[in-house]
């Protein structure tokens, strides 16, 4: 028999006042029924006889008082929660890791709503079965680990922490949770390995690692369990039905923007063949449907084509009731076009002018060309200070003070300075070579600015390699060094091109320095600059993120805050940073999200699971942790048999008895 006190010592002290109060009340005496008798003469005589040994005599004869005290005793016993449990080979320290990833929403478990609820129940039962000498910590994990409760022997705290755990729509990363558990079980040394003077900061404490999961995560290899003794409690069955949408996107036709192409991938990630109808809806209106019938492990691609010029929210749903519902729905959106404001400071640059006035660029950009002398005017100062322009392009000129917006320098360097460690300041940007002929040799094709570009055929007559401040990224490399670099500056970004497009000769005549303006890549590059650096919205599909991701969006600088709303949900106000960047963190729920400024939609994005690992919901029989393979324990944990319910039933029975006795006495 073991006891688990549900009350703190203070509570017990208060509780002990109850029986004292009952006895006092018994003597103070409550309400007495007045009754008229011919004479109190004989009654008083009777009482006098009884009063000879009054207190004890009175107590001895009061069955009601005894019943009340018995009820209180039973209540106290019930609160001590007497119970019996078998012996467990516990190390005295338990680490509960509970999986809260999306796959735990699978409903293939009997008795419980889903896998997560079963995991919670099993953890709860193990907490109840803890002995007083055991301590435990509780960590939940999805794509990030959260220590819900650090080591404690207080079951109330563990219970509270467990009640706070909630299943998420996020993918799984067990490594963070293992590291959290590892921190206490395997304390590291104070300094580098091999240091003979190094001392252990604390003794390593062996602990039981109880992992409640369906095993739907990548094999963890770079981890040493050390003193952790892992136990894997698999939640869920190995036989499941699950069709999952793993990709869903919409793209506008570049040539015909009103045409929208929609693509989706559906995979059977269950262990049984499954068939379903995929229904495509636009703002809840049915657009199209297609059927899929997939054997186990097979996948099918679905494509749809619609016409719309507006910002649209698409939803693809599989009409099937399988074990995991979250991956049966996918969302996609097409963002509206967005105008950006660009100021071009140039003594004259026709290629740039032409590139900014193409039909495609003209739709998303409002440009204004000013000569370098404009930089000395008050109007420029105000514009540079206010940051109203989304981008300022400096062609062969440079401002004395950097503006509060993104910049693109052509054949010139930004004037900002960086502080050194010795207190001095140096130029942030430098020329790294003398002017010379340039042969391009490298390009970062992954960067959004360099998408769709083919530049190796360019002729560049004269250029200088660029050296940017710390954090710069080289986008274009030449034989003489970096030719195009981008670097952050106080939340803004500066792009520097190491060669001029149009040069002015010694005689003052204008001449071309490169043939880029004649290449197709030139207007595409300018468009990339507008999209990425000026923040013009993509006309293609809105990006999709996984649940829980932080979504960074660049909106117009003038907007102070935006409303972010999931369709049919209440909008949340999110502030916009000084550079027009807003960070949206409330992205746990899948769906189409709209970012609005007033009534105008400024951006859109989607949240989708799109995770094959999460959608593969068959519970793993064993998992790989570190260098160990941990087999799932079939028997589950030992359960504590408790008697407090019986005590409560006893209390009720005594209450009924007391009621009956009281009724008889008063009647």
């Amino acid at each position, binding site marked *: 028999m073991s006891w688990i006190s549900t009350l703190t010592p203070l509570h017990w002290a208060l509780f002990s006042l109850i029986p004292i109060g009952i006895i006092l009340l018994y003597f103070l005496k409550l309400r007495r029924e007045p009754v008229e008798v011919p*004479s109190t003469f004989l009654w008083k005589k009777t009482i006098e006889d009884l009063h000879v040994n009054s207190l004890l005599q009175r107590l001895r004869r009061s069955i009601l008082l005894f019943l009340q005290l018995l009820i209180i005793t039973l209540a106290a016993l019930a609160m001590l929660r007497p119970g019996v449990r078998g012996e467990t080979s516990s190390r005295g320290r338990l680490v509960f890791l509970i999986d809260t990833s999306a796959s735990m929403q699978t409903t293939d478990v009997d008795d419980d709503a889903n896998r997560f609820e079963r995991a919670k129940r099993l953890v709860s039962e193990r907490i109840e079965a803890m002995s007083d000498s055991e301590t435990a910590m509780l960590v939940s994990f999805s794509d990030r680990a959260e220590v819900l409760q650090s080591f404690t022997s207080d079951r109330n705290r563990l219970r509270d922490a467990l009640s706070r755990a909630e299943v998420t729509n996020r993918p799984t990363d067990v490594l963070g949770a293992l590291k959290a558990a590892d921190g206490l079980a395997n304390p590291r040394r104070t300094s580098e390995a091999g240091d003979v003077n190094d001392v252990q900061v604390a003794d390593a404490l062996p602990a039981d690692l109880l992992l409640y999961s369906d095993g739907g995560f990548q094999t963890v290899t770079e981890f040493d369990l050390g003193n952790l003794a892992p136990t894997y409690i698999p939640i869920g069955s190995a036989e499941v039905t699950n069709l999952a949408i793993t990709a869903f996107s919409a793209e506008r036709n570049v040539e015909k923007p009103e045409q929208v192409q929609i693509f989706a991938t559906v995979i059977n990630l269950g262990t049984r063949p499954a068939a379903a109808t995929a229904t495509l809806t636009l703002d809840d209106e049915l657009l199209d449907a297609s059927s899929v019938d997939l054997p186990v492990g097979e996948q099918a691609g679905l494509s749809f084509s619609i016409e719309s010029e507006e910002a649209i929210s698409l939803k693809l749903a599989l009409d099937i009731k399988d074990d995991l519902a979250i991956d049966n729905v996918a969302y996609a959106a097409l963002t509206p076009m967005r105008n950006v404001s660009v100021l071009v400071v140039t003594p004259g640059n026709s290629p740039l002018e032409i590139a900014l006035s193409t039909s495609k660029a003209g739709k998303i950009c409002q440009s204004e060309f000013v000569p370098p002398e404009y930089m000395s005017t008050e109007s420029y100062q105000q514009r540079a200070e206010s940051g109203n322009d989304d981008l300022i392009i400096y062609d062969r000129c440079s401002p004395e003070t950097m503006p509060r917006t993104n910049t693109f320098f052509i054949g010139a360097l930004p004037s900002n300075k960086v502080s050194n460690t010795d207190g001095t300041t140096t130029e942030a940007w430098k020329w790294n070579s003398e002017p010379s002929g340039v042969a391009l040799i490298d390009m970062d094709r992954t960067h959004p600015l360099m998408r769709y570009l083919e530049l190796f055929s360019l002729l560049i007559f004269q250029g200088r390699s660029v050296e940017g401040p710390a954090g710069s990224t080289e986008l274009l490399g030449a034989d003489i060094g970096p030719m195009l670099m981008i670097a952050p500056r106080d939340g803004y970004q500066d792009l520097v091109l190491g060669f001029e497009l149009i040069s002015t000769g010694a005689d003052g005549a204008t001449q071309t320095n490169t043939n880029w303006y004649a290449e197709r890549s030139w207007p595409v590059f300018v468009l990339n600059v507008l999209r990425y650096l000026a923040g013009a919205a993509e006309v293609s599909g809105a990006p999709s993120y996984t649940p829980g991701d932080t979504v960074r969006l660049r909106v117009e600088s003038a907007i102070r805050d935006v409303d972010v709303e999931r369709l049919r949900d209440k909008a949340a106000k999110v502030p916009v940073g000084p550079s027009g960047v807003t960070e949206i963190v409330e992205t746990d729920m899948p769906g189409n999200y709209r970012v609005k400024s007033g009534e105008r939609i400024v951006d859109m994005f989607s949240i989708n699971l799109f995770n094959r690992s999460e959608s593969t919901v068959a519970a793993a029989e064993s998992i790989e942790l570190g260098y160990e393979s941990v087999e799932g324990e079939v028997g589950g944990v030992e359960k504590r048999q408790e008697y407090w319910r019986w005590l409560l039933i006893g209390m009720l029975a005594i209450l009924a008895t007391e009621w009956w006795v009281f009724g008889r006495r008063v009647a």
Partner: protein
Amino acid sequence: MPATATDPLLSPELLGRLERLELVSRKVFRGRMKGERRSRRKGESVEFADFRHYVAGDDLRLIDWNLYARLDQLFLKLFLEEEDLHFFSLIDASESMNFGDPTKLRVAKQMAAALGYVGLCRADRVSVSVLGPEGRRAPVLRGRASLWKMLAYLDSVQSGHNVSLHDGVKEFALRTSGTGVAVLLTDLMDKEGYESALRMLIGRRMDVFVMHILSPEEIDPPLRGDRKLIDIEDRDEAEITINAHVLNKYKETVQAFMNSAKHFCSKRSIIYIPVRTDTPVETIVTRYLRERGVVR
């Protein structure tokens, strides 16, 4: 069926049975008026008692002239004189008597009426009165025809004369000069005690009967639980938790109280008659009182 307050005190059937009864006195009292009762005192009647010599001053009408003719001596022929008996019914009409169903007071009034009627039928002098100053207006009755007068007086008797037994009997003793049979109808519930009252009656050379009237609710109270008992007379309160133990103790106390009253009475030649109010008055009169020699 229990009698109600509106029922007549004595039923016609009972009246018929009472007419055949006679009050018994264990003492010889000298009646004031001629009655149907044979007295030890020699006097005028039809029943011969004795002869005695004539002395000067005797009533010449009592001389037995036949004897004078035979013996030539004057003898007076003596007869047993028939006397009346003075019967007093004293009703305790304190508030405590107004308890039970029927109330103890009603039973007391019935007993007084029944015994009074027995006396009236035998030409005894009957005085039925309540203790206390109210008793002053009680009529002294004689003759069967006075029954209605007696009943009218009894009907007018209400409870609430909260005088102690001592004071009530003392007041009775002061206003009554003669002797006779006194029946005290009371519950003896007097916090000052009943002893002095009974002694006072004995002191007045009364032939005393005490009818101790108690209701079943007093002997075995149907009370349980936490109660505040209120004395019906003086509103005295007693808070008590009544359980089986206390109840048994109370019953023992009641029994001890009755025993002590009986003991007190027997030591002083007082006939003590316990009466339960749930016993019909016919049964009390024709059986209990007969057994105890109150009537015959």
